């Protein structure tokens, strides 16, 4: 059964349609990459999937369950769908460790000692255990973004949404974040990734979706999209990003 599914989703800001008839299915342990020009609706799509934005029509399903059911509590849904942002959005008033602990403690209500040992294990995995007591502003952008990824993993989500997580980084720091995402993909993490890193998308994606002006114009395997795009719009976009 699919982990996350969007069915004919429509989203407007005022009169301006931002997503039009968007459908996608993400199976467990798969990685889907969303590509498209800036303003094409990638961030909006991810926010709708996480119920951070209400949708105007269509449906979002988690493990086959419709999330437009009024009995569904969005807070419970978001514990299962984690999100990582372009600008990290670490909490500046909390230490690295407390950033990672915030969700487990105050959304899941787990006790500190137990959650803490797990958080330290996660930080050790990205080589930042020794920085657990530091505040985020002491860390490089690459380190901050890796902490942000670990912060979402601490929730043990069913799916991870990543919104251009390397776009705000100094080029020299992009590699360490992409390497972490590659590791996660290899370990079978289900992910929906909006990205401008085409080489990375080709490596990790099981499916690539090209979005233009809120419409999924073309979708397929990385080989289909990058080597043999069918739509003129996809070809034009890929030519521009080369």
């Amino acid at each position, binding site marked *: 059964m699919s982990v996350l599914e969007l069915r004919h989703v429509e989203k407007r800001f005022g009169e301006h349609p931002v997503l039009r008839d968007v459908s996608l299915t993400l199976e467990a342990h798969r990685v889907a990459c969303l590509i498209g020009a800036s303003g094409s609706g990638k961030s909006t799509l991810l926010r709708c999937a996480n119920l951070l934005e209400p949708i105007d029509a269509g449906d979002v399903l988690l493990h086959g369950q419709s999330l437009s059911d009024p009995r569904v509590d969005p807070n419970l849904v978001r514990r299962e769908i984690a*999100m990582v942002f372009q600008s990290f*959005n670490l909490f500046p008033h909390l230490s690295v460790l407390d950033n990672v602990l915030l969700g487990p403690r105050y959304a899941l209500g787990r006790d500190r000692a137990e959650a803490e040992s797990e958080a330290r294990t996660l930080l050790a995995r990205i080589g930042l255990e020794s920085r657990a007591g530091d505040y985020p502003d002491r860390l490089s952008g690459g380190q901050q973004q890796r902490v942000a990824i670990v912060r979402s993993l601490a929730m043990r989500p069913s799916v991870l949404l990543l919104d251009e997580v390397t776009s705000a980084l100094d080029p020299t720091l992009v590699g360490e974040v992409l390497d972490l995402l590659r590791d996660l993909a290899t370990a079978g993490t289900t992910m929906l990734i909006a990205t401008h890193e085409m080489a990375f998308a080709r490596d990790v994606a099981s499916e690539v979706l090209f979005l233009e002006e809120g419409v999924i114009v073309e979708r397929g395997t990385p080989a289909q999209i990058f080597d043999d795009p069918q739509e003129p719009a996809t070809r034009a976009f890929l030519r521009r990003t080369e």
Partner: protein
Amino acid sequence: MTDSSEGTGPDPARLYLPRRKVAFAGRRGTAVSAVSSVAVIALLVSVFFWAPGGANVRATFFSFHDMWVAFRGDPSKGLLSVGSGLITNIWMFLLSEVLVLAIGLLIAVARVSRSPVLAPFRVLATLYTDVFRGIPILLVVYIIGFGLPALSLGAISSQSPAVYGVTALTISYSAYVAEVYRAGINSVPHGQILAARSLGLTYAATMRRVVLPQAVRTVIPPLLNDFISMQKDTALVSTLGAIEATRAAQIYSSTVFNFSSYVVAALLFLVLTVPLTRYTDHLIARDRSRRLAGAS
């Protein structure tokens, strides 16, 4: 080789100050500011000596004997101590500050909430801040201090003037402080709220764990500024007959016909407010240098 190449360059000494000025330059800043401070103070004080009414003013405003008696009080002449009056000011503002911090926060949180359930509170909170920031505090003091006793409502109408004073100050300042908090809440980047909500935190948990801790930190200096004003405004409660520093000073001056008691009261208020003023400035300077460091 290095020597010869340096020898051919321009003489570094051409950029030096004249030798005579070099010795002075190091201590120049301190020396100049000390001399100019003394000169300015001397000039201001000298006004009391050469002005035609100078002697008069010195005797009626700056008599050390009267200052001392006013400070201590003299029960045999019915003179109240300005010093112990100040104790009343201190507990009035301490109590008001605690109440204002709590009530101001509640009002601010009500105002920024988007929940439809809280809509009536949002309207009330907006109305409250609009009304009480618009009414002079002295009038609020009168309305509470004379209005509540006139109601003849048991305990509500039989409190001391100081209690009505605290009530009036709390009512007025909660409106100002709520706006300070609200500005702080609005200054927290939206991405922080998105990050917290996407972790599954509820709106309330997001406020409590993410938004408010950051908001409070940024508004500490403006909050302290409001507290400095409130410390001074405790003097307004004298109009209700509360025996605080200003009132004791007034009794002294109208009994002995010497105004030195007011100067004592003024000095005592300075002793209270100046440390807070300095501390607030220190915090503002620290924030500023942090921001400059962060921007580089």
